């Protein structure tokens, strides 16, 4: 083979691998991307049942009901709307009423959000950014949160 032919082989195989990768990525983007929504977004956008989303907001005061076998129900609020959430499992260390929470799962036919993951955030001063933005949008952001969120969080954590 001449130098030119060899270079063509090289460039050709490079492009082929790249094309495969792009196809894989487009396919994965279609299937596995999860949008973040506040309870208000869920109401406005009419998110269908069965669509996987991330739901973020505050755990409504006095809404936590613990059932048997680690099942728990609570409501997530952004001040304007709220949504009931059902979850079964061990809750993260900092899950408590009045705190920010991000849950991943899907709505069922009855309008209850079935979460399979409650995201663990590891600092009491930490307000998930998505939640903070959602609260600001709904006009229920309190400066108190801002101060807490603005405090340095020690970095390095996940």
């Amino acid at each position, binding site marked *: 083979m001449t130098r030119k032919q060899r270079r063509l082989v090289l460039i050709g195989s490079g492009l082929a691998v*790249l094309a495969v990768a792009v196809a894989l990525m487009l396919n994965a983007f279609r299937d596995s991307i999860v949008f973040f929504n506040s309870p208000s977004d869920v109401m406005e956008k009419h998110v269908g049942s069965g669509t996987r989303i991330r739901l973020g907001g505050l755990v409504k005061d006095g809404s936590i009901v613990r059932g048997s076998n*680690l099942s728990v129900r609570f409501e997530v609020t952004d001040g304007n709307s709220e949504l009931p959430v059902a979850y079964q499992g061990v809750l993260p260390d900092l899950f408590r009423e009045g705190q920010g929470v991000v849950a991943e799962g899907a709505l069922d036919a009855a309008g209850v959000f079935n979460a399979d993951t409650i995201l663990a955030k590891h600092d009491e001063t930490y307000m998930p*950014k998505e939640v903070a*933005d959602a609260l600001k949008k709904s006009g229920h952001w309190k400066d108190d949160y801002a101060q807490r969120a603005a405090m340095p969080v020690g970095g390095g954590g996940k």
Partner: protein
Amino acid sequence: MIPELGQYALMLALGLALIQGIMPIVGTRTNDPTLMSIAAPAAIAQFVFVAIAFTALAVSYVTSDFSVLNVFENSNSQMPLIYRLTSIWGNHEGSMLLWVSILAFFGALVAAFGTNLPAVLKANALAVQAWIAAAFHLFILITSNPFLRIPDAPFEGRDLNPILQDPGLAFHPPMLYLGYVGFSIAFSFAIAALLEGRIDAAWARWVRPWVLGAWMCLTLGIAGGSYWAYYELGWGGFWFWDPVENASLMPWLAGTALLHSAVVMEKRGALKVWTILLAILTFSLSLIGTFLVRSGVLTSVHAFATDPTRGIFILAILIVFIGGALALYAWRAPLLKQGGLFAPISREGALVFNNLFLTTACATVFTGTLYPLALEALTDAKISVGPPFFNATFGPLFIPLMLVMPFGPLMGWKRGDLLGAAQRLLAAAMVAAVAVAAAFALEHGGPVLAPFGVGVAVFVIAGAVTDIVERTMFLRLPFRAILRRAVGLPRSAWGTAFAHFGIGVTLLGIIGVTAWGTERIAEIKPGDQLEISHYRLSFDGVFNRTGPNYRDVVGRFTVHRMSGELIGVMEPSRRTFPARNMATTEAALMTRGASQLYLSLGDPNKDGSVPVRLYFKPHVLMIWLGAVFMFMGGALSLSDRRLRVGAPRPARTKRTANSVLQPAE
């Protein structure tokens, strides 16, 4: 006084970096050896002053000087000494100072030990190092000064984030930074080569030890971080495809590719232009990794808005260095001479294949990590790209890489014998087939494809062994002859085999734990029993324990084999740190061979029951053991005589002759 001294030293270091960055370049342009020779002493002096600054911060931490804002926010006088020291890099400002200290240290090493480097290359490379250093010094002094004081010194500090108070975190960030910053040397040499418009095989020989060392540290750093996340976060996951983790994986992938392409360049003089590009990309990804993690931009692009100066500064550094380097590359790379020819089926071809797949895999990780940021910045929609995306893209790209890997070392340079290599790998393939059959027969449940995954991993391991067997003529020669051959093998051959073996071991661990791991989640009361795999755990009760700066609520569990034999006790706990009013989950681990039992507690309920999470993690330790093998492979390769000797012989004798002829220089 001491913090002021530190700040002053850092300013002087900035001044020295500016001198080191300008004078040698002027020297290479005007062909003035005196100006060029400024680089080395300036680099060493810069390191001395950065070291003084770092020591000043360390002293402030050790003596708990809470009049320093940074110490107040991240330390506490009750903390053990080791964590008071590691708090230095448990925060943004301190970690930046550590970063720049390592950078200056490496610069000083090049200056002190790079005596056999051509003067122009050395001057240019040290100057580029100095530009990076100057940018970081400025960044620290203007936006992230760790030496700021508080007017009224508080009596007690706020404490380090408790999840960072852990031996794993003591060494994880420095190892990562050694890796990230180590790649800066390859970057500087690449830019120097572009500035000079000249590059040869010797370039690869000088740069390769640095790439290898950086790669080793990054490998251990990533593995350490993964193990820390596994036992500290209480979820038992070893890899979350979290953006923070991806930020360290990307330079590792690009660095691995660089490591392999530099071999081709060194041995065959080919792939020069590509190697230069990889050197630039690897360090660019390290820069992005450092900044993305530290700036908080990964959680939301709006984090930039909370601290605009820092955000804009970071963007400026990224644009200047990455954009500048790539522009220089586009302009100067065509000047570099093309290298040797090789057939597609050859050692070079295999290494090109490796590079192709590694860089593409790196690109998919890059896309998945940064796409949400781009989308949020452009459309305000918030999305998360999680494990399913990466499993569906990264996985398929890695399988061909694994399958081809054993062929590479068995192939000859220039023109390889694919059929011959396949014949020699026949035994390895048979071992792999037996492993697939065994996995089908012995394991139940789990994905159908998992046994084939085991087959791939075993093929990689057996392939690495085959390489050594072939080279030593094992079983075909008398034992002493084999031994002599084994000792006589180049260390780099052993290094390759070890590192490839390690990849296989890691893969085996990942498949084992994801396919056949089991979990139990339950609420239990004292006296209750849990069963998992071959083990039975009985819950004895809860008691309290006090540590230096925390309180523990400990659950005590006795572990028996199903047959009744007592194995031991597991004591997971909930740890509360009063200084921050924070709780962490301290999981209990019990190692059985390469597998582990993993137990963590939830918050105890009012009725006395405790939620627990119990996992059986088969072969999980192999994940990190494999990384240790990779590290050892790197170390063996690094100790190869060829690299220690440095430049090729003929060039060396010529240079000695030159220096004899020009004593007045």
